[in-house]
């Protein structure tokens, strides 16, 4: 330290950094002129828009303003039955198409999706509340990538399963959540179609608009009627779908609670099942890690998509020797997260998806405070209308606290510490979930040692929440079973006939 350093160091109070005072960014809202939303949406059955037999509709709202966006049909038992029948009717011709021809449709869907990317990004942001930055740069491009990727496999399935004959299963019932509405639809539909199955998809009650708009893309691409059917509704609709006897397989992404119900519903029926459920991922930061980049990783891990991510890094496990430094850095970084209008291109964190989810997050944060954990939230003005929650960090959390064990599904990080790699592994795996984990360390050997021991479907190393259509995604334990994406994901959509042949 030089002499000046010491003099200045005495004025420790002057050492705070402030942000956004000198050069505030002007609002930069994405224009929504090119997005028209019909006042009412029907069901998509057999390639047609069909009124629900229930005659009932429900509203879907913009969580950032609480304004209704549109009315959506409520599908009842009879509608579900009609959808499964439409899919069953389309199945024989679709499975008979050559892989090359199926690929052509998937490629076309992917290209149209990219051509209409801006429209889809805006619609997703309006219906879901997530920032336009994410829908534009993550949700929509990844959704298109899933169609591109699976188009590539459609005529090469024989190569995936050498010596065996991969055959489609039949009609697949798919139920998807509200956190990545279009992306989850793509994850489910693309491999199913590539393998020659037909689909009945039920989007989440609170975010159905992009899946419905995807049906327009199917029509534009000339996809044969009935190959994909989309029925909207609430939990009852989903329950009717998974109980329908015409299904060959059910694929579900959502909460562990509902996943267990579905598993009970399909038990003993000879129906295939894959479940992608909750998580309470451990995000490990070692003292030798690139700390500034690890901070970014942790922020991306828990505040991406308002924390509405099943694989969110909600448990930060930081080595005790760097805990103080790291938490300081994190706190300072959290102060700069821009929370607000999701349509603004500079917004980092948008609205909480629904009132119900906001209530759940608020309750769990209350639990954390009551149990004596130290709460940190940046000071930041939130809009008055809509559902909002500040980026939140709890320190002084231990393994037995509820906020360290239960999935919150919101922007709430629990910080715990460890001393040795062994302890880190033990704590990371000490959960009923096992969807993902993250490791920040500069030591290659340590990373491999840890990755081998993590009971998690995805282990990210020096990054977090990165997705790719070629990479299988899925969980251990109560995070579900089956994989989505990659070759492993396609396996869940075929029946292997012909047994093993040498060569």
């Amino acid at each position, binding site marked *: 330290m030089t002499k000046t350093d010491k003099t200045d160091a005495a004025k*420790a109070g002057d050492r705070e950094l402030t942000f*956004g*005072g000198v050069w505030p960014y002007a609002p930069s809202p994405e224009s929504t002129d090119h997005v028209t939303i019909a006042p009412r949406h029907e069901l998509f059955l057999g390639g047609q828009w069909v009124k629900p037999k229930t005659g009932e509709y429900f509203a879907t709202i913009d969580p950032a303003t609480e304004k209704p966006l549109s009315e959506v049909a409520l599908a009842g038992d009879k509608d579900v039955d009609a959808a499964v029948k439409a899919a069953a009717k389309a199945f024989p011709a679709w499975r008979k198409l050559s892989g090359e021809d199926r690929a052509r449709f998937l490629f076309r869907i992917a290209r149209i999706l990219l051509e209409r990317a801006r429209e889809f990004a805006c619609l997703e942001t309006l219906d879901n509340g997530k920032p336009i930055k994410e829908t534009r740069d993550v949700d929509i491009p990844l959704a298109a990538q899933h169609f591109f990727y699976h188009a590539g496999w459609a005529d090469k399935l024989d190569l995936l399963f050498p010596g065996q004959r991969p055959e489609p299963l039949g009609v697949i019932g798919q139920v998807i959540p509200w956190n990545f509405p279009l992306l989850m639809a793509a994850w489910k539909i693309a491999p199913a179609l590539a393998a020659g199955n037909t689909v009945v998809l039920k989007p989440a009650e609170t975010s159905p608009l992009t899946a419905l708009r995807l049906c327009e893309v199917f029509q534009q691409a000339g996809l044969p009627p009935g190959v994909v059917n989309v029925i909207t509704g609430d939990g009852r609709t989903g329950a009717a779908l998974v109980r329908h006897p015409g299904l060959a397989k059910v694929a579900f992404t959502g909460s562990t609670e509902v996943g267990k119900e579905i598993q009970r519903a399909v038990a003993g029926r000879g129906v295939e099942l894959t479940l992608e459920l909750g998580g309470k991922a451990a995000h490990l930061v070692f003292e030798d890690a690139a700390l*500034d980049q690890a901070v970014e990783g942790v922020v991306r891990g828990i505040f991406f998509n308002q924390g509405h991510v099943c694989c969110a890094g909600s448990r930060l496990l930081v080595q005790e020797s760097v805990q103080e430094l790291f938490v300081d850095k994190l706190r300072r970084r959290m102060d700069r997260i821009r929370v607000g209008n999701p349509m603004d291109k500079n917004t980092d964190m948008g609205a909480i998806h629904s009132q119900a989810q906001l209530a759940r997050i608020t309750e769990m944060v209350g639990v954390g405070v009551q149990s004596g954990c130290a709460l940190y939230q940046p000071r930041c003005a939130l809009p008055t209308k809509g559902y909002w929650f500040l980026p939140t960090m709890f320190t002084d959390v231990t393994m037995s606290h509820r906020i360290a064990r239960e999935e919150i599904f919101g922007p709430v990080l629990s910080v715990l510490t460890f001393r040795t790699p062994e302890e880190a592994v033990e704590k990371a795996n000490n959960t009923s979930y096992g969807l993902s984990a993250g490791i920040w360390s500069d030591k290659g050997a340590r990373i491999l040692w840890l990755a081998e021991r993590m009971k998690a479907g995805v282990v990210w190393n020096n990054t977090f929440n990165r997705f790719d259509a070629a990479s299988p995604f899925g969980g251990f334990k109560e995070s579900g079973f089956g994989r989505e994406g990659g070759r492993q994901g396609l396996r869940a959509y075929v029946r292997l006939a012909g047994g093993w042949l040498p060569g």
Partner: protein
Amino acid sequence: MASSLSPVEFRVPPVDAVALETRVADLSTRSIKKAAKVQGLKLAIQMMDLTTLEGMDSPGKVRQLCQKARQPLPSRSDIPACAAVCVYPDLVGLAVEALRGSSVQVASVATGFPSGRTDRVTKLREVQLAVAAGASEIDMVIDRGAFLAGRYGAVYDEICAVKEACGAAHLKVILETGELKTYDNIRRACRIALLAGGDFVKTSTGKVSPASTLPVVLLLLEAVRDHFLETGRMVGVKAAGGIRTGKDALRYLVLVAETCGDRWLSPQWFRFGASSLLNDVLMQLEKERTGRYQRPTDFSAD
């Protein structure tokens, strides 16, 4: 003053290249519009070290540049002057003369710029002459040969010696990041410059490709921010070379705004070293004012 520190002092945290570049990509999507754009572009002018460092530099060229720095766009009184004019040492006197009465500083490169491959005595003498001729800012180059050979103490000692030779003049330490190659090297070189008392760390000479890049500048900003939090001493950052458009400049300013924050958003703590950047910034400012792009010939070529 010029005593070598122990190698422990030069230890730095590792840098993860992929994650660093990911962060830059994310910040590069910031959308700077309307009032923020105008303010940012004007700030960029105020932060600009208008530079000419060529063998063919002549008194006429330097005078021309000085006039441009004083008044980048004579038709608009709201356009600020540049921070400094940066020249070779033999042209310092001339620049001082041309800039008399203005706020524009005279910066001189020194220490055997750009390679730095000359002996210590010559380097220090060059600094002293530049300061004596009226340079208020000295842009030195570090000894990359010594650095890459692992002789960090030698690099440190030399910066200390140059700092002493600068007297009251501000010292900018050019790391020449394009020759250090890895982010880990750059972070370490930056640490050495901070410990040795540099007033600024500067990316490049402009003679080596790549010159300034966004990830490198983010890394330097993180380093000076941490140094400030640790010691209370503020050090500036200068991005030099390869910055040609107003849009580029705004991307750099976003890094400053979101890494170091308000304190660094001033010409005292952040600079651009550039020659062709200014006219593009002026063109963008005119476009914001009139709603139309002007012809390139509407701006003086200097």
